[in-house]
């Protein structure tokens, strides 16, 4: 004998029995808890190098393209002799020449 569902204000045709619905709700809660746990584990990490630890990184020796004209000229020489170009990290790259 089927569990009556007519008491529901919106009777659903083919709706699962009440004990099965309860199990589904429980399953969903577990999945939601797992997702929440995983998301909290995946939350963005805190910056691990503090500003006061970046003194060495700020030294000019750590910058490759220290001087704009020099970098531009070196890139120009490569542009006119090699087919590869781009992804140099130099802003507005390109040779602008034939």
């Amino acid at each position, binding site marked *: 004998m089927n569990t009556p569902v007519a008491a529901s204000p919106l009777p659903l045709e083919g709706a699962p029995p009440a004990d099965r619905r309860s199990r589904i709700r429980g399953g969903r809660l577990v999945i939601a808890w797992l997702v929440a746990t995983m998301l909290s584990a995946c*939350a*963005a*990490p*805190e*910056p*691990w*190098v503090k*500003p006061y*630890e*970046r003194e*060495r*990184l700020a*030294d*000019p*020796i*750590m910058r*490759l393209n220290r*001087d*704009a*004209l*020099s970098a*531009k*000229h*070196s890139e120009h*020489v*490569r542009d*006119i*002799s*090699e*087919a*590869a*170009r*781009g*992804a*140099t*990290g130099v*802003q*507005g*790259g*390109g040779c*602008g*020449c*034939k």
Partner: protein
Amino acid sequence: MAASERIGRWLAALASLIGGVFGAAFATVAARAATLPENRAEAMVHVYDGGGVTASGPAVLVRKSLADKVSLTGSYYLDAVSNASIDVVTTASPYNERRNEFGLAVDYAVRDSLLTLAVGASSEPDYDTRSVSLDIAQETFGGMTSVSLGFTRATDEVGKTGDPGFHDQATHWQYRVGVTQILTPKWLASVNLEAMSDSGYLGNVYRVARVFGAAVPEQVPRTRSSRAVKFRAVGDLGQRDAMHAEYRYFWDNWDIKAHTVEAGYSRYLGQSLLADGFIRYYTQSAALFYSDNAQTETTYVSRNRQLSDFDNVVVGGKLSYDWKKQPGQYDLKAHAAVELLNVKYHNFTDIRDGSLYSLRAAVLQLYLTATY
């Protein structure tokens, strides 16, 4: 509303949008004010000498900030070229020409973003280029991550000396994105990606190809699509020295694939000298339609050695000297840089003697930089 105010609001809105996107991507963003590049002036003399080509000239750059929000940069660059390269001496007559290039850029700091709008113009007797670029850089993740986006569009007007009836155009688009990440108090790493698209006349009006041994005008496709990705790491070695290593992979729909590997070392010598040295290896495969001497007739054919199969080893060094310094007022440095190139072509012959062609070239830069 004044035009400058309207542009300012546009830039602010764009920066807010970018900031919002990055802010959503990095949940622990700490608000940091972007800083403008320092006031700076550079003056350089450059020389390239190799393979029968000598190109030299002066270049200057001046950058000055206004009201802590905007920085203006103006630059000029001259190439005086004397060309007797193997392409020229085997098919035409050596020539001299000049290329003038002007650039103007505006940096605008808004919240934690730095926006750079730049325009450029380059002029040769038979070739003119106009370009505009927009770059946006933003620090995020507590200042540990720097993200940059950029776009350039350039238009070329192509002519031909001695043929006033010839005229063509080319348009270039470049889209770039980069991420620089602080890894430790001593190490930085970055990834740059760039997509490029070219349309129009992409060959050289003077260059000839060889088909069955006969010289014919080169035929190059009118479109090209290219990609490049570069990985780089820089590390402080702890003895007032540092090293860097990088790798770039390039590929395009002309079937060119190129690898670039570079490693370098920098070291302070005493209180006033900084020395840099690097070695770079570059290798590429040939374009589909490249042929040293084609044995079949095809729609496209080129003997442009830049599109051939070759490798290039570059060794370079630079010395920077702290010339004069007045703390809080100015800092003047003198620099001398040398690069030696050694290019070996694997499928490009010197038609004068039938041997595989190779060239050695030297690049010299002498320049002064001042921050103030």
